C-alpha cells in the first residue's frame, strides 16, 4: 500500500461509506468515535496549530485519547514521541531531553515536565474551527525498554510504519480489530494503523484493563481479528470470557510463540486462522507464519520478497522498507549495517527444514513481552552482604514465556537454617529496587559460576 500523506489526509480523502457514518470507528474503555468526526474534529480544543513543527511528547494515560492525538498531530508536529504507560519520571526526563521535546500533550493537569507548552487532550472530540496548515513528514518515535540508563528512542516514519500493511481486496468481509497491546507499543501501533488505513473499527484496550473486561468488550463489538503476545493469549485463555469471542484471525507477536500456545489457540478457536509474526520496533514487521507450527520455514531465508531475511552466525537479520530510520540521542549508532540489514539480536537454530528461536544473544530475558537485562538484577542481588556473585538467566515459563531465575554464590555455604532466610532476604532486596517482572521467580545457591575468557560471566542465549 502506498503510504498515506498523513493519517488525517487519508481519513479525509477516502470516501466515507454510509456504514461508516452509522457505526463508531474507535472504541475505547469509556467512549467511542466515528470516522467523520475523527477526520474533522479536534481532541486538543482546536489548539493543534500551536504544535506545528514541534517535538511533542504524547503522554496521555488513556490510550484512546492518545490515539485521537496521534491522528490529529500526524503531519502537524515535527516529531511525535509515543510515551508508554510504564515510563517512570526519571526516564521521562531523559526522553524529553534526548528527543528535544518542546511540547507535551497529556490528559492530566499535573505539570512536572517543565516543558513550555502543555496542551490537554480529551477523549471528547469537538468541532475544529481552524483549517489545517501545511503538512510535513512527522517523525514517529517509539520507546523500547532499554538498559538501566532508560529506554531507546526508535525513529520511524508513517511510511516505514505502514509498509507492511496491505490493502484489503474489494468486497472482503468487514473486519473489527482488537489488540491486547497498548497502541503506543510497536505491536499495538501496527494494529491501530491497520485499522485506520483499512477503515476497520478497532477496540482499544485500556491502560490497566483486566483481560476479562477487555474480552467482554471485544465480544460486544463482535471482534474478528485479535492480536497480542503469547503471554497475552495465555492470560486470555485463563479468562472465562475467552469463550465469548469468535475471531477469524488470531495474531501472536512480540515473544517466541511456542507449540503449546499455538495448539491451545487452534483447539480453542477452531474457526480462526492462527498466525505468529516476527516483528520488532527496530526491524519492523518481518514475516508471518500460519502453518500452526512454532519457528519458521527455512525457505523464508533468502527468498525474494519485500523483506530480505538472513541468518548470520545464528542471528536473524532483516532488511526492508519497514525498518526504523535511526535511534535518537546518544545511542544513534548501530541500527542497520552498511548493507541495510538490522540485526534483531534473536538467536535461531536450524533443525531440518525449519528455524527455531532460542532466545536473545545478549542474554536479555523476555518476561511476558517486557525486556529484562540480567546485569540490573545481578547488581541488586549482589547488594546482599552474604552474596559473593550471582548470575541471572531466563527460565522457560508456560505462562509468561520466560521468568527470571538467579544462581547465587554466597561467601560461605548457607547453614541448614540460612538457606530459606537468605532467599527471603535476597528477594526482599530485589523487590525494593526492581519492577515486579524483574524480581527472580526462583533462586538457587550454587558453589561457583563459570567465567568466560575475558573474565566476564558466561551467558548463553
Amino acid at each position: 500500500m502506498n503510504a498515506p500523506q498523513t493519517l488525517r489526509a487519508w481519513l479525509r480523502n477516502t470516501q466515507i461509506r454510509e456504514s461508516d457514518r452509522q457505526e463508531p470507528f474507535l472504541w475505547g474503555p469509556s467512549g467511542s468515535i466515528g470516522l467523520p468526526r475523527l477526520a474533522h474534529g479536534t481532541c486538543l480544543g482546536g489548539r493543534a496549530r500551536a504544535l506545528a513543527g514541534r517535538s511533542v511528547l504524547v503522554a496521555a494515560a488513556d490510550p484512546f485519547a492518545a490515539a485521537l492525538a496521534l491522528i490529529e498531530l500526524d503531519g502537524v508536529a515535527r516529531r511525535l514521541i509515543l510515551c508508554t504507560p510504564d515510563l517512570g519520571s526519571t526516564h521521562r526526563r531523559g526522553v524529553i531531553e534526548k528527543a528535544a521535546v518542546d511540547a507535551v500533550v497529556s490528559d492530566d493537569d499535573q505539570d512536572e515536565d517543565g516543558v513550555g507548552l502543555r496542551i490537554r487532550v480529551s477523549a471528547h472530540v469537538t468541532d475544529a474551527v481552524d483549517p489545517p496548515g501545511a503538512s510535513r513528514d512527522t517523525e514517529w518515535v517509539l520507546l523500547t525498554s532499554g538498559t538501566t540508563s532508560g529506554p531507546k528512542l526508535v525513529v520511524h516514519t508513517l511510511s516505514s510504519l505502514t509498509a507492511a500493511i496491505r490493502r484489503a481486496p474489494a468486497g472482503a468481509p468487514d473486519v473489527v480489530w482488537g489488540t491486547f497491546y497498548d497502541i503506543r507499543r510497536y505491536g499495538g501501533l501496527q494494529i491501530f494503523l491497520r485499522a485506520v488505513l483499512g477503515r476497520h473499527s478497532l477496540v482499544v484496550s485500556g491502560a490497566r484493563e483486566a483481560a476479562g473486561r477487555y474480552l467482554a468488550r471485544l465480544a460486544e463489538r463482535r471482534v474478528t481479528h485479535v492480536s497480542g503476545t503469547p503471554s497475552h493469549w495465555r492470560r486470555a485463555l485463563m479468562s472465562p470470557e475467552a469463550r465469548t469471542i469468535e475471531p477469524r484471525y488470531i495474531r501472536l507477536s512480540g515473544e517466541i510463540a511456542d507449540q503449546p500456545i499455538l495448539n491451545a489457540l487452534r483447539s480453542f478457536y477452531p474457526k480462526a486462522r492462527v498466525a505468529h509474526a516476527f516483528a520488532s520496533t527496530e526491524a519492523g514487521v518481518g514475516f508471518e507464519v500460519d502453518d500452526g507450527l512454532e519457528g519458521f520455514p527455512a525457505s523464508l531465508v533468502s527468498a525474494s520478497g519485500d523483506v530480505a531475511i538472513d541468518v548470520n552466525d545464528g542471528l536473524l537479520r532483516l532488511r526492508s522498507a519497514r525498518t526504523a530510520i535511526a535511534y535518537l540521542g546518544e545511542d544513534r549508532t548501530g541500527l542497520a549495517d552498511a548493507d541495510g540489514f538490522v540485526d534483531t539480536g534473536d538467536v535461531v537454530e536450524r533443525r531440518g527444514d525449519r528455524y527455531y528461536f532460542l532466545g536473545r544473544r545478549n542474554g536479555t530475558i523476555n518476561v511476558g513481552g517486557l525486556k529484562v537485562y540480567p546485569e540490573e538484577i545481578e547488581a541488586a542481588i549482589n547488594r546482599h552482604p552474604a552474596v559473593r556473585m550471582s548470575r541471572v538467566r531466563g527460565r522457560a515459563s508456560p505462562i509468561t514465556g520466560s521468568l527470571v531465575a538467579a544462581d547465587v554464590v554466597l561467601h560461605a555455604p548457607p547453614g541448614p537454617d540460612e538457606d530459606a532466610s537468605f532467599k527471603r532476604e535476597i528477594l526482599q532486596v530485589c523487590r525494593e529496587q526492581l519492577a515486579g517482572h524483574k524480581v527472580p521467580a526462583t533462586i538457587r545457591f550454587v558453589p561457583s559460576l563459570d567465567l568466560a575468557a575475558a573474565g566476564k560471566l558466561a551467558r548463553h542465549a
Partner: protein
Amino acid sequence: MSVRTAVISEVRQVAADQKKTLPPLIDDLVLLDSGLDSLAIAVLVARLEETLGVDPFTESSDAAYPVTLGDFIRLYERAADAQGVASQHADSRV
C-alpha cells in the same frame, strides 16, 4: 502432603511475597480474579515445579489453560498421578 495442600500453600506464599490479599480459596475461584496476575501465576508454576517436580503445562503440549483454582489443582493432581505411575513402572523394571 497432598498435591492440593502443596498447591494451596504455594498460592498463599506467592500472594504473601507480593503483598496480595487472597479471597477464600474455593475451587470455583477464577484464578485471574484471585488477586494473582499472570506474572504471579507464572511464578507459582515455577515454584511448584521445584516443590512437586512437575510442570503440567510443559509436559503436555495440549493442556488446556486453567480458568479456576479447581482446574489448576486438577491439572497438578493429574500430572502427579501420571508421574507416579511412570516412576512405579520404572521401579518394576529395575
